[in-house]
């Protein structure tokens, strides 16, 4: 008689088991499949969204995935949920599931053919989804654009706060420097108005030279970061926090006093160059470059400086150069984000970049998770969506959001998704086909 091996099956609760069984076929859908499903859902919304919304009792399609409606008129909660289910979840889920094998084959083909091509196709699909979704209303477009630059800001702050472990309060200052520099660039060169005189170059050239303006803003912010980086050589921790705070107040005060950029009244008339493709491309660039930065040797050096500066310096890490690079790199991207911000809102004044902005950017980083690119994205998107969803509650919004963050700090002090690496190439792979019941050991 042979040895009988028994399968040890743990008894799970019925609900959890049922959920796992439900999700199983969906876990085989590659990213490509989900993107196509989302595209289908968004197309459906474009065609029948408004009518369906009216059918359910709302005046039109809900503005922000139904979140705002839920807060504003609780009676319409079932309608909003029904809308989300029928217009978004069902089409996306069904199309993605039905096309699983096709999507997997396509993903595998693309992946083998050329990973770059695969990435571009995925990004193009994602952009199409965003573009079509935001087509429905200006409000959606604004939310999408602001969320995208929030991702850039959060990523750049995470480089210093998360990967290098400093507590840097200077980010609003970098945002301000980038915003003002890019604004002055575009206004002086491309806009006829009374403060700076006539446009120096034909306005048609504007959108093409806009990246140069953004980069100039980034460089100015990086130069400003020197004021924070150089003292950081001698100090760490708390004193660096003070120095960065002093830097922020100095920048704020500087712009408040510079009459030629408007002083406290601010600067407006920025041309409308920050359209969705531009913002999307810059966000993708930021995510790609920052992700590569933190996964490279210098990213490891950042972690080393955080975990033990003395030990790192004995292990051939040039701590000064690392700190300098981290601050300047982070400030550069913050400057870019500031420039984009200025051209989306098309009005900036020093008050925008004060303590409230500092609290917001810190909240986004710590909400999403330190030392993690995925966490920064989640934090930026989550914070912005939460802010927009809670907007109908007006003043209560700024009580609920801090409470949520405090609870988060108590139960997950490093954030939702912390200390994880993001491998974008892995996202492009097809999901492996597993057998039904393949995870049980046969007796």
């Amino acid at each position, binding site marked *: 008689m042979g040895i009988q091996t028994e399968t040890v099956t743990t008894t799970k609760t019925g609900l959890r088991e049922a959920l796992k069984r439900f999700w199983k076929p969906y876990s085989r859908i590659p990213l490509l499949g989900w993107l196509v499903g989302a595209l289908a859902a968004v197309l459906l919304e474009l065609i029948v969204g408004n009518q369906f919304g009216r059918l359910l009792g709302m005046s039109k399609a809900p503005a922000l995935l139904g979140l705002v409606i839920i807060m504003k008129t609780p009676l319409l909660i079932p309608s909003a949920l029904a809308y989300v289910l029928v217009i978004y979840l069902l089409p996306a889920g069904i199309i993605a599931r039905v096309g699983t094998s096709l999507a997997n084959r396509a993903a595998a083909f693309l992946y083998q053919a050329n990973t770059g091509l695969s990435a571009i196709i995925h990004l193009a699909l994602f952009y199409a989804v965003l573009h079509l979704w935001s087509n429905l209303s200006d409000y959606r477009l604004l939310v999408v654009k602001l969320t995208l630059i929030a991702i850039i800001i959060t990523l750049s702050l995470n480089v210093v706060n998360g990967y290098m472990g400093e507590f840097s309060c200077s980010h609003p200052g970098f945002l301000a420097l980038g915003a003002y520099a890019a604004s002055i660039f575009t206004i002086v060169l491309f806009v006829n108005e009374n403060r700076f005189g006539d446009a120096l170059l034909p306005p048609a050239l504007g959108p093409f030279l806009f990246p140069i303006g953004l980069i100039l803003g980034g460089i100015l912010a990086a130069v400003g970061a020197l004021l924070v980086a150089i003292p950081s050589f001698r100090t760490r921790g708390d004193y660096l926090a003070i120095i960065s705070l002093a830097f922020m107040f100095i920048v*704020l005060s500087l712009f408040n006093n510079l009459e030629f950029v408007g002083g406290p009244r601010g600067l407006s008339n920025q041309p409308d160059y920050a359209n969705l493709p531009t913002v999307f491309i810059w966000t993708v660039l930021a995510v790609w470059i920052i992700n590569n930065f933190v996964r490279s040797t210098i990213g490891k050096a950042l972690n080393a400086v955080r975990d033990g500066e003395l030990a790192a310096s004995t292990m051939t890490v040039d701590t000064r150069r690392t700190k300098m690079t981290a601050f300047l790199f982070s400030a550069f991207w913050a400057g870019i984000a500031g420039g984009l911000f200025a051209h989306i809102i098309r009005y900036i004044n020093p008050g925008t970049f004060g303590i409230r902005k500092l609290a917001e950017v810190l909240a986004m980083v710590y909400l999403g998770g330190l030392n993690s690119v995925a966490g920064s994205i989640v934090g930026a998107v989550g914070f912005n969506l939460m802010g927009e969803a809670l907007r109908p509650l007006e003043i209560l919004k700024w009580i609920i959001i*801090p409470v949520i963050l405090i609870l988060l700090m108590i139960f997950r002090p490093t954030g939702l998704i912390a200390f994880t690496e993001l491998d974008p190439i892995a996202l492009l792979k097809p999901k492996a086909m597993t057998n039904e019941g393949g995870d049980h050991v046969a007796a």
Partner: protein
Amino acid sequence: MQSFLQNIVNALQWGSFYALIAIGYSMVYGVLMLFNFAHGDVFMVGAYIGFFVSSGLLALAGTGAIALPPGVMLGLVLVLTIIISMFLNSLVGMLIERIGYRPLRGAPRASAAITGLMIGIILETGNLAIFGAQRLSFPALIESTTFQFLGVSITNKKILIVFVSILLTLALHQFIRRTKWGMAMRAMAFDFVVVPLMGISINKIALLTFAIGSALAAAAGILFGVAYPVLDPYMGILFGWKAFVAAILGGRGSILGAMLAGFLMAFIEIFSVMIFPSTMRDLIVFSVILIILTFRPHGFFGEPYSAQMRL
């Protein structure tokens, strides 16, 4: 020369506020190694508590239940206001410690900093929600009389403010130096880990630290209300951050340092306005502080080494 002396008097008054608030920051930082970014808003809450207490006391006095000459009555109201508000605000501070900071005792300090910022926002927004955006007017608790001394006009309000703040600081200093609780606080500032091994409850000392800091902030709030009788929910922000910088400038955990740094900042502010355009005040103050911190990063009375990094 006259305006120079006048500015010195003004700076002493202005510096008293910074000093009292900075001491609260410095104490919490020294004993608990964390920044209580909500402290500026605790100052604001103290001022509002003072507003309500003094209004209530004045109404009580107005009923004529107790017969005292008006000057003495007002003085009594002022003293009682300060004492009662300090007590009530210390409860607020202890509540903040218990709810916001105690669960984060072992967490990375950055999380505590974020919590502090959030608590500050909750206090501001709560105030805005409850009392609306209209500014409140602090009742007059002192009849203002002006003395002329060497060509400098000094009001009794200014004397009171400087006097009360120095008195409170000295009282605190004696408390820290001579009582057992004070010794426990000094011990915690010196070595956080060993203190519970010696039978001292960290929770109690933390509550006490926050209580004292918040009480001082309430005193600062009431004195501010006496000098500038307009209260609004956001009055604590700029004061809080500047006092925070002053606390760091004074050195970790050093009360004397915090007081000196608070007065120094006030002096720089007032005298920079004398020479430069007044809009550049913040710019100059923070630039000077940046320069000081670049060359002496640990502040006036702090230790030169970067102490246990409890990140």
